[in-house]
């Protein structure tokens, strides 16, 4: 008997050799392959919900307050002059602006509402001017602006790429339509100097606009769009052009004209002598002159502060509301009785 038992057991072990199935190796155990990596399993318990709301409120409300205060500190003078600078009794504004023989000089008087500390930023603001229009945005040649040897690289500049058979530098609609109103300021019968240095981005001056690229054949076409450039100054120093060519995101925009390094007192009156050259009349755009101080936040804009305040306040309210709700209708976490199949008593 014993011998036979041994025989059958050895047969059992021989089985493995006789049956070489597709022997796949047993998957090795690791926390990764078994999807059991240590993990945090957050659950929105009442404690968590309320603390998140309170925390957000605590962060957002101060941010909102600070932003709002900063924005309120900014003093801003905005003066729309496009209509006012057209001589009275002019019926056809377009004819007026297109006629080079009519003098475009115009004088505006501004009153300082509050003390303004230097530096005071001078902006021009255009309304309803679509610098982001598809035809317009594309009409420029960055290679040409940067590299003197690529002057003929104007394929992307249509319809302002060549004039009289030669390439325009800088080509394209954007450069062609550079803003060309000018402003002079008189304060207490003293000229206020407007500092026009460093109004553009340093990176643009250094890398996008070449210091050996000079305007050429510019504004020589039948229709003059805007500013003419001094052909003896390289593009990297034509800061008005550089500012203009950084196209605005929205149809209402400001661009920096210069800085005034003089403090202005409340009630001071400033006389602005301006040249109203730029044609916005054809598409009923508006032109505004803006004098503004600045804070760490930028210009005057209450929106962000209000937004933070609102959301922060809302979070406090929600924290309160949820506390109430949790008190009124508490639920024990992880209670079996809430499972759908346990909720209905059996036998129904």
């Amino acid at each position, binding site marked *: 008997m014993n011998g036979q038992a041994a025989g059958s057991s050895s047969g059992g072990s*021989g089985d493995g050799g006789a049956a070489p199935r597709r022997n796949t190796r047993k998957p090795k155990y690791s926390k990764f392959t078994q999807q059991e990596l240590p993990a945090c399993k957050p659950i929105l318990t009442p404690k968590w*919900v309320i603390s998140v709301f309170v925390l957000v409120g605590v962060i957002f409300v101060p941010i909102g307050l600070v932003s709002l205060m900063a924005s309120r500190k900014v003093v801003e003078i905005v003066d729309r002059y496009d209509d006012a600078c057209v001589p009275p009794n002019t019926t056809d504004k377009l004819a007026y602006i297109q006629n080079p023989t009519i003098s475009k000089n115009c004088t505006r008087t501004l009153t300082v509402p509050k003390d303004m500390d230097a530096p005071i930023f001078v902006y021009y603001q255009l309304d309803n001017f679509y610098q982001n229009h598809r035809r317009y945005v594309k009409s420029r040649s960055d290679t040409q602006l940067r590299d003197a040897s690529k002057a003929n690289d104007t394929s992307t500049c*249509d319809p302002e790429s060549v004039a009289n058979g030669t390439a325009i530098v800088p080509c394209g609609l954007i450069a062609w339509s550079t803003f060309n109103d000018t402003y002079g300021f008189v304060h207490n019968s003293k000229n206020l100097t407007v500092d026009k240095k460093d109004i553009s981005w340093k990176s643009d001056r250094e890398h996008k606009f070449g210091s050996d690229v000079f305007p050429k054949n510019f504004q020589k076409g039948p229709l003059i769009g805007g500013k003419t450039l001094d052909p003896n100054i390289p593009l990297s120093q034509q800061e008005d052009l550089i500012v203009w060519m950084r196209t605005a995101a929205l149809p209402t925009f400001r661009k920096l004209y210069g800085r005034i390094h003089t403090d202005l007192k409340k009630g001071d009156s400033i006389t602005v002598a301006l040249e109203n050259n730029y044609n916005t009349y054809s598409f009923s755009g508006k032109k505004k002159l803006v004098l503004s101080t600045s804070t760490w936040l930028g210009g005057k804009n209450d929106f962000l502060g209000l937004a933070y305040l609102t959301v922060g306040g809302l979070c406090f309210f929600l924290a309160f509301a*949820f506390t109430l709700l949790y008190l009124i209708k508490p639920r024990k976490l992880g209670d079996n009785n809430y499972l759908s199949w346990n909720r209905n008593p059996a036998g129904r």
Partner: protein
Amino acid sequence: MASERPLLDASPRPPPPPPPPASSLLPPPQQEPPLRADRLAFSLDVPDPFRREDHPQQQQPDASRSVVVGDPSAAAAAAAGFAGNAIRTAKYSVLTFLPRNLFEQFRRLSYVYFLAITVLNQLPQVAVFGRGASVLPLAFVLFVTAVKDAYEDFRRHRSDRQENNRLARVLAAFSAPGGGEFPPKKWKHIRVGDVVRVASSETLPADMVLLATSDPSGVAHVQTVNLDGETNLKTRYAKQETQVRFSQDGSVGGVLHCERPNRNIYGFQANLEIDGKRVSLGPSNIVLRGCELKNTTWAIGVVVYAGKETKVMLNSSGAPSKRSRLETQLNRETVILSIMLIGMCTTASVLAGIWILNHRGDLELTQFFREKDYTTGKNYNYYGMGMQIFITFLMAVIVYQVIIPISLYISMELVRLGQAYFMGADKDLYDESSRSKFQCRALNINEDLGQIKYVFSDKTGTLTENKMEFQCASIRGVDYCSGKDSCGYSVVVDDLLWTPKMAVRTDPQLLKLLRSGGTDEETKLALEFFLALAACNTIVPLVLDTRDSKQKLIDYQGESPDEQALVYAAASYGIVLVERTSGYVVIDVLGDRQRFDILGLHEFDSDRKRMSVIVGCPNKTVKLYVKGADSSLFGITKSSLDLDIVRATEAHLHKYSSLGLRTLVVGMRELSLPEFEEWQLAYENASTAVLGRGNLLRSVAANIENNIHILGATGIEDKLQDGVPEAIESLRQADIKVWILTGDKQETAISIGYSCKLLTNDMTQIVINSNSKESCKRSLEEALATAKKLRITSSTGTLSPELASESAGITLALIIDGNSLVYILETELQEELFKVARECSVVLCCRVAPLQKAGIVALIKNRTDDMTLAIGDGANDVSMIQMADVGVGISGQEGRQAVMASDFAMGQFRFLVPLLLVHGHWNYQRMSYMILYNFYKNATFVLVLFWYVLYTAFTLTTAITEWSSLLYTVLYTSLPTIVVGILDKDLSKETLLAYPKLYGSGQRDEKYNVNLFVLNMLEALWQSLVIFYIPYFAYRQSTIDMSSLGDLWALAPVIVVNMLLAMDIFRWNWIVHAFVWGTIAATTICLFVIDSIWVLPGYGCPRKLNAFMSLHAMVPHFVIKAFSEHFIPSDIQIAREIEKSENVNLVNRSEVSMTRLDDPRR
């Protein structure tokens, strides 16, 4: 000594024609297909879908090929169409790669859409993105896929080359130098007609007909594991004619006629003309490419099919492609998104038209439009209102295209790949006993596993182990069932002890009866009974060495586990099968070795449901032994003689099957000489016919198999697999209906139903067992009435039928058999059956044919939206597996046909529970979330673009640089969702197993439906408004330039959508952390990099980081989430809380049964 001599030589009166040599008189035994009770009904006729096309009856006479043995050139001349032996599985060559691969890739609709957009963008008027930038994403995707395909194809080329350059020994022509030798030759040069010599453990290079083997009787053993996965050895025979001729002078010859190449690996018909005789050849004479020669020193064969015409190559086709339900539903949402897209484009173009209309007088002088080009004096890029609107529309399509997330399809593929990896790596899905891993064969229906409502299961090999154990015998009406101890029995051969490998429990009474040596009728018939068991089969005894040099082990190898069990049983009672050759068997009958000549063998087939052998006994009588299904054998008994015995046997059979045993009936008949001669003539004619041989043999068998004496019956236990009752219980708790479709008898099926807890005593059973259409109709109507009555008495009327019947504690079980199904399926009664089946919680179908299995699956699949899963292990389950939404193959004892046809393959039935409840749930949850999230994130981005267009005079300028908008879907947001789609788990494995009802979320489509889609779109709308308008108002009337604001608008959606993802992630492990935060960081870095390239307009932009202020947009999502999780919690939410509080081990009744599943086995 007389017993050693052929029967007819010794006959006193030789038959009129001169007796031919003994060996040629003995027709070779035919290889018999696996004999299994549940296969009895249908096995061979419809084992797989390929078979029908090459059924012998449909063969045309011209469908054969001729091969001149040993002369490949002649064979080639006879028909130029023979393939060489070089194989080519690679799809492409260097030249065809590009066109073919592109063609394959563009068969996906999404790629065509992508291509159309790209082409549109190449038109100069419409170009939104730069040409390079627009081609890049598509090119990238195409390139990656092409590289993957090329690599796979390279590996195929390499393996082809290796395969083709393997060496085989091929007989050189006698005229050539070295004639008669077997010099090595590369596989690829082997041609049809070559004679090849194969040594032990070598792989066969092509499909060959055996000519001779090292065994004098011409036996060769092959292992077909590469072909069908079956590891047992199969016996193949060389014909005596060729065997003798080769052994005499080493020569070969003759002309072979065989069928055209076909896919049927179990069928072959041919004949061989040799020395002026026609010898028939069958499936037992052919060895197939890919098999290995075992236990045979050498074998010589002639190549009949080579290369791509071999059966293994013809069978290498992949699983059918199925589409997941989520993907189908996703198409609906894609249509909604397309409508949104068209709506947005229309809005933009109409508004652009209105703007131009209002300003048409100003366009020439307006600096930012300037209609005219003064160098030519014509309009520049302006084609009038209508055209302008049309162009705007096309451009809008290009700009807003991402609202239909192309990258989603790629992400889904990657996520499925990851999920498949983790399913394969799960140690809980690894089967120790068969050493097989879980295999994901179809990569596109992972998520369907989470929505299954019906499981259709095969019984044998799926619920049971398919390891048969002999339990009971009924001999001449006496039941011997009290087997207790398993004392083995050994025989002594040449002073060595030969022991069968397995010992079977024996009944002492029966043992005593046999050993008594009595000569009474009872003992003799008992002996006959066991002789029938030992002889009437195709089992081959293999003698293995053991460590003890005095002992040898007999291993019975065969294709049918039932037969193995029977032979082991006979051996335990002392009737030991010792040797089998093509002409005779040697059986040790209680210590006395006797030789029995096998004169003929009638294969099993599904019409007769039985097999028989004709045996020449040592005492010169000729006997017919039959074994088969009860219904089949009782029909051919000499009922006048054995009425009592038949009755007693029937009673025993009933008892056995109600114990869950598989039953077979054994019968015998003595043949008179005239009968035998008549049969022999018919048999020889039939077995040499090339065409229609199967039918001829069948009729020969039917003629001789009558007037049978019933010897007795056997009961074999088919053990349940581990954990099957627990698994079925879990599935039922998860509201999955489990149907069993089996070929077994009704009683067996019901008893298995009880033992796996599918049926319980408090169930009302409806049995439909009819033989005509009318009675079927009647039973169905009655069943429906019963169901209605139960429903009315048990419910208050408002609940759904299933809920009502279950809550009342009265459940219905429908038991229906294959006969009735014949009248029901494919007729108008189907609808009735469907109604009845819907009312029942358990359905058992017994005695069903493979195609009926598919029909039942189709019954549910076509009438409901419910997902179906079919699980099975055998060739008879293939049609059902292919029909169901999800097909699971058990890689078990029965070969690989089911696995080859399946979408998923695993080792054990109980793995279905972790597969569905855990992985299915995860996959569904992850994939649903990923799809919705992808829709949401792309919609958010597109809407931001859309709002901006309202401020650009509707000209489709994008403030966001084209690079950022292209990278948004590809890089900025896709990686975290892929990682989350692969790794996130809403609940742990333990919780999901402890609460099977949690599976319901997938069945009810809770994670992906139109409501959720709309909710996500509203979220996208709100967030895009916040993302757009906060910077808008903050920077209105400021000096901000387009690129700076564009950067804000590019970064803000990335932050917001990733934060939303972060809020919804269930489990934060370090990988998830790395990807979510890493993506936000990477996006920021990317923006800085893009802005440091001086050509791009955004050069040097500051202020990007202000984008974090868009986090205001998250408040509503957080509020809704906090509110709904606390006040209207889903089951999953509560389960998560339970899991967090870690009292998961203390709860729930099902926990007790589930712990067994979690434990490693024993």
